[in-house]
């Protein structure tokens, strides 16, 4: 295709008519761009964190991780305490308080 072929380009443009734009299209586009820039500028790290926290996927993953970590650490601690209890029980049996 020869790009300088103006006649061909005119025919091509006529074959694909572009729809007419709604009223105040340009103004609306610029306003939306300005609004978007303004909201980006006003976002603090706290707003960003709040937005992150409110994401369902993030909230679900964070909650699952917290519960799993709690369960694992709790089980480890419970096991340690049970061992401590068993040791204390043995010592109390072989060395009652009366003789210490």
């Amino acid at each position, binding site marked *: 295709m020869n790009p300088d072929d103006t006649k061909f380009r005119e025919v091509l443009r006529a074959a694909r008519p572009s729809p007419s734009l709604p009223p105040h299209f340009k103004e609306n586009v610029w306003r939306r761009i300005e609004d978007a820039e303004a909201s980006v500028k006003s976002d603090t790290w706290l707003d960003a964190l*709040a937005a992150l*926290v409110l994401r369902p996927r993030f909230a679900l993953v964070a909650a699952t991780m917290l519960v*799993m970590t709690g369960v694992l650490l709790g089980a480890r601690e*419970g096991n340690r305490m049970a061992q401590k*209890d*068993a040791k204390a029980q043995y*010592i109390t049996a072989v*060395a009652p308080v009366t*003789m210490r």
Partner: protein
Amino acid sequence: MNRSLVIVLGALALGAVLFIGSFAASQRICRMCVAQPTGSLDWLQNEYHLNNEQMGRIQNLHQAYLTQCAAMCQTIDGKKQEVEAALNNSTNVNPVAAQKIEDLAACRAHCQSQMLQYFISVSQIMSPDQGHRYLAEMEKNTLGFSGK
């Protein structure tokens, strides 16, 4: 108050509740499940890696010692009551009370030497390393030794 701050603080509080709740529940359940019945020597077996043969010998020794120990405890309780009676309404330590206190101390000393003998006998059934560790641990917990 800032909406974002409320959201973040709320999320932190919820996270803390989730973590503490799951930790406490898991700890409680695990402690209950792993708990050993009274008189069980399972802890000893696990802690000092004892085989069944060693465990059997220690169990026999343990039962014999508990019988001795209960008798000694009764004797000590009797001596304590004698000291209490000798000191009753007294504002100073009279010669009778002093004698009773000495008797009680002698009884306790005898009891402690029996206990120490039991620990030594148990430690000799274990492997040398474990026996040394057991003896140090028991002396530390019952007689207040430094455990060095």
